[in-house]
């Protein structure tokens, strides 16, 4: 028999699972979501023709980043929720775990597949978004230059600068990264819930529930931390909300980025750190639950 030492964590095994998950999701045609995104961008530009370019760019950016956030979040939840139940139902999980594959490796591989899919989708959406924005900027610049052809060069310079400021701003990139990290967190959270859920509808419903609670967790937490007011019961309730649920509002930078608020790098870094923390945390919790699960 082969007695070559068994490696507890093998990149080869994990990458095989990752590649397979990505193939699976790709063949489920999840990328059609991106088509929807493209239609939305192009469709929305049509009715924005009546707005001024600043308004148009603001709305375009809001819609694009909002849609990116919705699509990546939905993709994260829906794609992850079906993974475990599907493998269990089809008994494919037996064939995989009967190989020298640790349950942790299985979960990491699956999750990494989803995260990779999310990364590809986010990048594609960002590219599409940049292309549309670039095209609109080009058109707006041409328009401004034409209208102001007789104005002094300084005014033209200001006007051109105004268009440029209204289109791209340097915080867009970290803003999009945080959208991606939020989706990663959601995927990991969904995986965790699916390790003890019995159906994937249950998983999706619970995740969406956590999603909304997560957006008001901050309010509950701050209220709880202030240590004043409220009955004992309501304080316990707030405490549980604060401890159990993640604060998802901390990841909502996109709105402020589009509005033009400049966001310090440390704030981005903190949010990114929290995003990674939660992703890893839920993965570990998933492993803890899943390792004890009878298949």
């Amino acid at each position, binding site marked *: *028999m*082969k007695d*070559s030492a*068994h*490696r*507890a964590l*093998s990149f*080869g*095994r994990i*990458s*095989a*699972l990752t590649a*397979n998950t990505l*193939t*699976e999701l790709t*063949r489920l045609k999840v990328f059609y979501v991106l088509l929807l995104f493209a239609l939305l961008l192009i469709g929305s530009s049509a009715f924005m023709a009546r707005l001024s370019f600043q308004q148009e760019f603001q709305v375009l950016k809001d819609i694009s980043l909002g849609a990116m956030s919705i699509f990546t979040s939905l993709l994260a939840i829906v794609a992850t929720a079906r993974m475990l139940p599907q493998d269990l139902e*089809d*008994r*494919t999980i*037996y*064939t*995989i*775990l*009967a*190989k*020298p*594959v*640790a349950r942790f490796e299985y979960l990491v591989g699956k999750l990494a597949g989803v995260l990779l899919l999310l990364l590809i989708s986010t990048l594609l959406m960002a590219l599409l978004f940049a292309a549309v924005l670039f095209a609109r900027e080009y058109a707006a610049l041409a328009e401004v230059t034409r209208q102001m052809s007789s104005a002094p060069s300084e005014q033209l310079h200001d006007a051109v600068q105004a268009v440029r400021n209204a289109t791209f701003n340097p915080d867009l990139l970290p803003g999009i990264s945080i959208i991606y990290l939020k989706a990663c967190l959601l995927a990991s959270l969904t995986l965790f819930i699916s390790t003890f859920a019995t159906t994937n509808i249950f998983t999706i419903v619970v995740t969406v529930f956590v999603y909304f609670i997560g957006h008001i967790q901050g309010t509950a937490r701050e209220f709880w931390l202030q240590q004043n007011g409220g009955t004992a019961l309501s304080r316990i309730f707030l405490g549980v909300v604060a401890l159990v649920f993640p604060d998802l509002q901390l990841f909502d930078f996109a709105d402020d980025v589009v509005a033009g608020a400049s966001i310090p790098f440390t704030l981005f870094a903190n949010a990114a750190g929290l995003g990674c923390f939660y992703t890893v945390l839920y993965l570990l919790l998933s492993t803890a639950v899943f390792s*004890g699960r*009878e*298949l």
Partner: protein
Amino acid sequence: MSEPAVAVTGLTKVFPVPLQRRSIVAVRDLNLRVDAGQVYGLLGPNGSGKSTTLKIILGLVSPTRGKTEIFGHDSSRVASRESVGFLPESPYFYKYLTAAETLRFYGKLCGMRGERLSARIDELLELVRLTEARNRRLRGFSKGMLQRIGLAQALAHEPQLVILDEPTAGVDPAGSREIRDLILDLKQRGITVLLSSHLLEQVQEVCDRVGILANGVLVREGTMTELLAVQNQTEVVLEGARPELLTQIAALATNAGARVIDQRTPQTTLEQLFLEATERSGDASR
């Protein structure tokens, strides 16, 4: 090789029933030993604990008490699965993969890669006679073909032990004959096979040793010849015996303190034994 391929000692598995006080005992104090190179058949009706036992051996389910080992490695360790291949009951694989892609995936899970993996995939497809279908998606595979690709994936890393859960369930006679031939082929190569089944004729054809499970208890175990021999009785097969001779034999027997019970062409089948054994245990546990 003195180390058994599979050793099960004092294995008990209790499944709690959610929201109820009672629980179900799936396997009760089971001891089992499969020696290397044997083909061992685990028999039993549905719900007798066969699948649970196999899953515990593979580390998919944890035992309540007792322990299981594969070539001396505890089943709860991932490393124990380096030397075992498993084909679950009516398996589904990823339908969007082709036969070759499926084997590549499982090969990688076993730590194989590159040239060696590619060569092994060709070999496996050849072995289960799916070379023609190598680039077809599993979506369009028949039950028999799925079972064969399942067997191929179980053999991907050339394990010393192969565990097959109902390998011929739902497969047509021709398909199940092919699988049976494959099992015999494995045996010839010195690979240990542990299979569960309720298709007794096939088991009879391929197994060296069988164990019969009923209600989680191993009620009979032994080699094929031991089990099928009827204890305390001797079969005398005569050719061209006249009735007078038979009468004489009966008289002789009576004189010697023996008794002729029956006169017929003696036959017992595994099926009979199986039914007998499981019915008796059912009465006992009631």
